[in-house]
């Protein structure tokens, strides 16, 4: 088999395993952990469109999660609208907000953009936490909103077991990864890369850098909001401190940064590596050493920035490509096929 064949086989295998997991793993606890793992992987990959491809540092993305969650929940609770529809409405709302915030701030220096996102997210949280009604909509302040059990089924986005949620978030995750891959190979992807590396040169080549970043921001906000609805339907309880929290915003950013922003696999790899750390340290150290997992996050973040600023995906991808090469060489028709697949080092992460 040649290199790209092995690569495709590996991916197919991975997909098979992912889809097959609920058939083998029956424990609700583990499924729950996996659902949250995919949830974070989805969030970080969506974040990556702005934080990685557009090259800025958004630190308030939880705001979009909150917008998505609250929109679909309110529409469902107060007006009986299906959460799926609410999900889309939430996405559109988040997109509008993202564009409005992005218009003036994406042109600024990185630090100012980061600050603006923090201020906006915190401002939103403060408002939601302290008002009960926004016009006709019941936000219920700090107590948050609880979703009462309804008839199970797809239409209500409510299920008894964890399995349906598992598949939904898995499909969402695959979707967003595919989207990211497509963008990286598209005009938008090239333009974002160029604008991030050398904005003046990019502009002289016909790239409207500000507009490209805005498009990325719009996409990212939309996708992030969808996850908010998912979270609401999964946990059936949302409140400002958990869903519009600075901690969530930072965790998303940290994971993406440690995994490797700007690459396709980085955010997912980051989630795969760090979420278990977070879960385990919470389970085992929760009482004795509170906050341990955040210390680990912080320390890993600093170490990665010092030694592997492009993220852990870089050495991991290189190792993977090395393995691919070795396996391809060992196969009988290696000599006939020579090299195929991704270009050396320079341009994109294919996996």
């Amino acid at each position, binding site marked *: 088999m040649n290199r790209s064949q092995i690569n495709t086989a590996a991916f197919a295998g991975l997909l098979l395993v992912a889809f097959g997991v609920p058939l083998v793993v029956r424990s609700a606890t583990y499924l729950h952990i996996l659902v949250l793992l995919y949830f974070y992987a989805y969030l970080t990959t969506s974040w990556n469109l702005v934080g990685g491809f557009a090259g800025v540092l958004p630190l308030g993305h939880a705001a979009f999660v909150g917008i998505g969650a609250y929109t679909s929940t309110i529409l469902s609770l107060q007006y009986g609208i299906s959460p799926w529809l609410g999900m889309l409405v939430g996405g559109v709302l988040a997109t509008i907000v993202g564009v409005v915030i992005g218009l003036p701030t994406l042109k600024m220096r990185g630090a100012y953009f980061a600050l*603006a996102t923090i201020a906006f997210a915190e401002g939103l949280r403060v408002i939601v936490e*302290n008002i009960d009604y926004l016009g006709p909509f019941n936000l219920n302040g700090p107590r948050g909103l609880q979703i009462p059990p309804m008839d199970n089924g797809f239409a209500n986005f409510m299920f008894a077991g964890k399995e349906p949620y598992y598949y939904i978030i898995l499909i969402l995750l695959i979707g967003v990864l595919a989207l990211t891959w497509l963008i990286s190979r598209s005009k938008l992807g090239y333009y974002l890369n160029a604008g991030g590396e050398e904005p003046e040169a990019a502009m002289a080549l016909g790239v409207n850098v500000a507009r490209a970043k805005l498009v990325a921001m719009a996409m990212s906000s939309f996708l992030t909001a969808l996850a908010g609805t998912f979270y609401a339907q999964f946990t059936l309880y949302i409140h400002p401190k958990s869903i519009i929290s600075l901690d969530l915003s930072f965790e998303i950013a940290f994971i993406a940064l440690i995994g490797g922003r700007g690459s396709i696999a980085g955010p997912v790899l980051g989630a795969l590596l760090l979420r278990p750390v977070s879960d385990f340290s919470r389970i085992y150290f929760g009482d004795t050493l509170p*906050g341990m997992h955040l210390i680990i996050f912080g320390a890993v973040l600093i170490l990665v920035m010092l030694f592997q600023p492009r993220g852990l995906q870089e050495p991991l991808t290189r190792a993977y490509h090395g393995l691919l090469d070795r396996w391809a060489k060992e196969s009988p028709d290696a000599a006939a096929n020579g090299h195929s697949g991704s270009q050396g080092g320079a341009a994109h992460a294919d996996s």
Partner: protein
Amino acid sequence: MLYIVEDSINGILMGSIYGLTALGLTIIFGVLKVINFAHGSLLMVGMYAAYWAVTLTGVNPYLSLVIVVPVMFFFGYYLQDIVIKPIFKAEKNVREPITVIIVTTGIWYILDNLTLLIFGPQYRNLPDNPLRGKMLELGDMFISVPKLFGFITAVVTVAGIYWFFQKTRTGRAIRATSLDREAASLMGINQYKIYNVAFGIGTATAGIAAVTLVPFNNVFPTVGVLFDIKGFIIVVLGGLGSIPGALIGGIIVGLIESVGPEFMTATWTEAIVYGLFLVVLFVKPSGLFGMKYDW
């Protein structure tokens, strides 16, 4: 009407303390061109240092300055030297050192949670300290004494820092580096040493601010977060890199926070502060006194 005057005075006093907390942030930005996201955590560290200094020795909180200031200075100096300098060197030619921002955020998380781990989540304060709860009667108005002390400390510190940068040799070297690091290094100034010193000074002023806060503010692991965010707002309002700007920005925020509740709920006051911040960012990002940058 009287309440508004009283609120205003207390607002100015508290605002000056806010300005003092933000002073380090603006110094570090002015010199290193970096927004130190860990600044609130450094403030928190200072507050714990002051708390323990007072609790163990029983002295007046303001006397703890003798310990807190040098400790904080060296903490900041070595933090910059060991953790942040390598990133700086790696990103020497990058237009904006975003990685440094990321690293300071990591430091924030580590410091806050390490403190949580070591000292626990409980709120601490100094119930017996001589300043607690003291009020000064001015006619029918009550002025908070600890805040008054804070105000005086803030003004003295700001004046002192200003004088330091204008008149002393080190201060001028720091200013030179902040204006043009290559030219300064050609003049024999060790750029990285300057960064260390600037970071140390910024952290030390956070220590001073911490001492003024400890008599009346609770001490707990995440106390720095709110000051961190307010610090950003203040520093953008007043102009990043401007020392008088930090004080004025702080006073503006302090005034809004204390006079605002007369007209609206405290929540909306907070929302107004964030809103004002966003407005300034959009309209005049260089703030009231800040340096002009190419946006």
